[in-house]
């Protein structure tokens, strides 16, 4: 299934690995920050209403 990348295999694979790791990290950190911000707001609003 893996295409034959010839003598440039390291070049191509390292580009894909670095880029995918950066994109996944960006998405993961964004989701984590979103959850944290939402939870903190709910906590403060809960304290205010309750």
């Amino acid at each position, binding site marked *: 299934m893996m295409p034959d990348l*010839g003598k440039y295999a390291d*070049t191509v694979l390292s580009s894909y690995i670095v880029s995918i790791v950066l994109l996944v990290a960006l998405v993961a950190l964004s989701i984590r920050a979103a959850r944290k*911000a939402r939870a903190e707001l709910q906590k403060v609003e809960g304290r205010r209403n309750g």
Partner: protein
Amino acid sequence: MGSIWEYANPVKFIRTSEIILPWVSILATVTLVLGLVWGFFFTPDDYRQGSTVKIIYLHVPAAMMAINVWAMMLITSLVWLVRRHHVSALAAKAAAPVGIVMTVIALITGAIWGQPMWGTWWAWDPRLTSFLILFLFYLGYIALWEAIDNPDTAADLTSVLCIVGSVFAMLSRYAVNFWNQGLHQGASLSLDKEENVADVFSTPLYICIAGFILLFIALVFLRTRTEIHKRRTKALLARERLG
């Protein structure tokens, strides 16, 4: 249909983005996976570049986004300066980390590709240099937001920085045309059939570009919501402290 300014209302923005966000996220994932799998597994090698041509599916969309994210930040910053809508300032703030990651991907994949093709990781070529300066502007922009406590002052100063940085965002795009020198070739995608990449490469490339744009939209929606929530929490805590 309502005015676009309705979405400057944080509550309206949160409600609308709640509906749109899951769909854009799914579409972004499907499009990106399709484009990258097609590009990596099912395209032939180029007769000159060999298999390194597959890097185009990451490098070109990331470079395009690096410039266009700054353009989006410029528009939202101008909206903030003129109309003082907080959501637009927060959207610019939310977009910056996405833009810097795109710039880093473009710089790294460019360097990795450049080593075997140009014989060097880096050259002080007009496009490469203006891209490095764009990266530094992204860093400065993010640092400035973090450095200032008052959110309105931070939004004002970062908006001015964004306007100044737009010169370099434009240079990153047109440097090749302005200075007819340097290692970097012209645009990979062109309306001129002679200059455009071959169809066998361009179709998955267009899909990857669409995927990167959709990913950006999804992330900006998500991150702007986060900024709105953080701002609301800060305001409520300040009210609590006042009693």
